[in-house]
C-alpha cells in the first residue's frame, strides 16, 4: 500500500448541528474499508456517531464493529477510573479513595479534570501498541462543538500554564506534544453553507491555530452544486411556486460557492460533501460520504 503519511489522530470538530458525527462516522468507515485499523472515538456523546453506521450506540468499552472498524465512547467516570488505576494499580485503594462520596464531590471541583482524563484516554489509545506496530492506524475523534472542542483540546496547555509541576502537569505535557505534532494530529473543521457555521469555522480554525493544531481540511457539508441559470429562474415568472423552488436552489448553490471561497482562505483544502435528499442516513449513504472525504484528503497528500 502506497499510503502517504497522514496524522493518525483525526480530530473532527465544528459548530453544533453541522454534521460532525456524520463526518466522523463516514471517515472512520472509509479508513477501515481500506484495511486500516480504525478507532471511531466519541467523547461522552452517548455513542451517536456509531449509531449512524447502523450499529448499537458505542459504550465506554472498546467494541469491534466490523472488520477493521472499532468504536468507543470515552466517558469521564470510566476514563477517570482507568487513569487512576493505571497510576495506583490497586483496586482496593481506588475504591477506598475514589468511591468515597466526599472525594467524588471534591474531584468535581478540580477544573478540567474530566476533560483531562478523557483526552488522556484518547491519547493513550494513540500510544497503544500491538506487537511491533501501533495498535491503531487511525483514531477518528468525534470532538465536541467549537467552544467545548477548543477547551477540550486546550486542556493540556492550560494545565501546563496553571499547574505547578507534578503528576498532572507531566501528563499534560506528553498529551500537548502529541496534539501539536502535525505528524500525529490533524483537525478537520466541518461547516455548512450558512453564515453562522462559516463564521464559527473561521474562528475555530483560528482557535486551533492558536493551540498549534494542524488544520488538515475544511469539510463543507450539505453542499449544493449549481443547477439553474439566472435566465432559467427568470423564465419561470408565470409559475411562482416553481420559480421560488428554482430560486431557492440557485441561492443554496450560491451560498455553497460563497462559503467555499471564504473557507478557502483558511489555507487548507475545502472538501465538499453533497447534500443528501433522504430522511435517515443508512450505512451506504454514510459510506458514500466517507469515500468522497477520503478521496479528497488523499488528493492533497
Amino acid at each position, binding site marked *: 500500500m502506497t499510503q502517504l503519511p497522514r496524522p493518525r489522530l483525526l480530530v473532527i470538530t465544528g459548530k453544533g448541528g453541522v454534521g460532525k458525527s456524520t463526518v466522523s462516522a463516514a471517515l472512520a468507515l472509509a479508513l477501515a474499508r481500506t484495511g486500516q485499523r480504525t478507532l471511531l472515538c466519541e467523547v461522552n456523546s452517548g455513542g451517536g456517531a456509531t449509531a449512524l453506521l447502523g450499529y448499537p450506540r458505542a459504550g465506554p468499552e472498546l467494541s469491534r464493529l466490523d472488520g477493521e472498524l472499532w468504536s468507543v465512547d470515552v466517558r469521564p467516570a470510566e476514563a477517570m477510573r482507568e487513569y487512576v488505576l493505571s497510576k495506583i494499580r490497586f483496586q482496593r*485503594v481506588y475504591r477506598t479513595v475514589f468511591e*468515597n462520596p466526599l472525594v467524588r464531590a471534591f474531584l468535581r*471541583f478540580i477544573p478540567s479534570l474530566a476533560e483531562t482524563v478523557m483526552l488522556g484516554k484518547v491519547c493513550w489509545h494513540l500510544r497503544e501498541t500491538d506487537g511491533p506496530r501501533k495498535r491503531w492506524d487511525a483514531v477518528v475523534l468525534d470532538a465536541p462543538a467549537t467552544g467545548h472542542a477548543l477547551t477540550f483540546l486546550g486542556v493540556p496547555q492550560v494545565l501546563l500554564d496553571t499547574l505547578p509541576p507534578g*503528576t498532572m502537569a507531566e501528563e499534560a505535557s506528553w498529551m500537548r506534544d502529541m496534539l501539536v505534532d502535525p505528524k500525529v494530529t490533524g483537525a478537520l473543521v466541518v461547516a455548512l453553507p*450558512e453564515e453562522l457555521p462559516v463564521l464559527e469555522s473561521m474562528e475555530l480554525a483560528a482557535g486551533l491555530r492558536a493551540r498549534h493544531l494542524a488544520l488538515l481540511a475544511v469539510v463543507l457539508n450539505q453542499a449544493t452544486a449549481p443547477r439553474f441559470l439566472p435566465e432559467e429562474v427568470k423564465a419561470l415568472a408565470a409559475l411562482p*411556486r416553481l420559480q421560488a*423552488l428554482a430560486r431557492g436552489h440557485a441561492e443554496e448553490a450560491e451560498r455553497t460557492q460563497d462559503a467555499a471561497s471564504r473557507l478557502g482562505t483558511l489555507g487548507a483544502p475545502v472538501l465538499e460533501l453533497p447534500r443528501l435528499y433522504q*430522511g435517515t442516513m443508512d450505512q451506504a449513504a454514510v459510506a458514500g460520504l466517507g469515500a468522497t472525504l477520503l478521496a479528497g484528503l488523499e488528493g492533497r497528500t
Partner: protein
Amino acid sequence: MRPLAEALRSRGVVVCVGPGGVGKTTLAAALALQGAALGRNSLVCTIDPARRLASALGLAELGNLARPISAAELRAADIRLAAPVEAMMLDMKQSWDELIARSAPPQQRDRILANRFYQSLSSALAGSQEYIALEKLWELHASGKHQLVVLDTPPTAHARDFLDAPARVIDFLGTDTAKWLLKPALRGAKLGFRLVGLGGNLISRTLSGIVGGQTLADLAAFLLAMSSLNDEFQERARAVSALLASEETVVVLVTGPAAERREEAVRFHQSLLEQHLNVAAVVVNQVHAGVGPEEAAASTRLPEPLRGKLERTISEANSLAQADAHGVRVLREAVAPTPLLTVPRFPGEVHDLGALWRAGAYLVADATPRETLAAAAAAPGA
C-alpha cells in the same frame, strides 16, 4: 389551541431550550417580537446570535445591556407592535464577575476574581454557562422592567446539564461540601488541604499523587475564599431554581425534524417533565415543505433542460418534505400531550426582522395537527 400565544400573553418568562444548530436563538427573538405584538413589554436575552441576527436586533456587541429594537427598523419591515421590545446579548464572564462582586465580602472579592481556578470556572464547571444564563434571567425578571423575558440558552445536548445547573452550582459554590472538607484547615486557621477524617493519609496521599499536592493546596485556597460568599448567593441560587419551576415560567423545547435530533428531543422532553417544568410546546424548526402535484405538473409543459432540472429539484424537495413530515408525526406522538408546533424552513437564513416576524407567526399558530382537524371536520356532527 394556540399554546405559545397563550404563554406569551400570560407568563412572565419563556425559556427556549434544545440542542445546538436548530435555530433556538432565532426563535427566541421571534417569540419576543410576538410577545410585543400581543401588547407585552418584552425582552429577548440571547446567548450567541449570528452577527446578522444581532445587527437586526440592534446589538453590536456583548454587554448585558438591554437595547430597544429600533422602531424605524420595525416600521421598515412593516411590523406593528403593541408594546416595546428590547434585546440583549449575555456576556457570561461579566455576569459571573458581577455575581461574585455582589456576593463576596470586599476583602475576598479580588482574591476570588484573580484566582486561576475562578478564571477557568465558566469553562471548567459543567452547567456554569447554563447557570449564569438562568441567574441573569432571574435578575431581569425580578427587575420588573419587562412583562415578558424570553431566554435563549447555551446549546445543551443533555437536559440534565441545564436542569441541574442551579443545584450543581449551589453544590459547587454554595460550598457546603467545601466547608466540610476544609473544616480541619479552617480550624487550624491555616490554608492547606488535609482530608483528616476521611480515612487519613491514604486519601490525601493518593489525591496528591494524582493531581499534585500544590494543586490541592491552591484549590483549597480557592474554596476557602469562595466559602466566604454571603448567604445572598445561596438565596439567589434557590430563587433561580424556584423561578424555573414556578407558574411564571414556561419552557419551549426547540428541535429539528432530523432523526438524530428527534431522539435527543424526546429524551430532553422527558427530563423536563420529570423536573415538573411547564413545557408549553415542542417546536420543530426548519421543516421542509414539499411541492404539490398540481404545481409539479406545470413543469411538464416546460422545455428541456429546464424541465428535467425542475423535476429533479421537485423530487428532492419532496423527499425532504416526506422525511420531515414523518419525523414530525413520530415526535408529535412521542411528546403528546405536549403540543407540537412546526416552523417551515425558509429559503435562505432567518436573520432580518421581516423573517423573524414571519417565523413568529408559526409560533403563535394553532398546534392542532392538520390530520386531526381534517378528521374532526369529517366526523358526523362536527
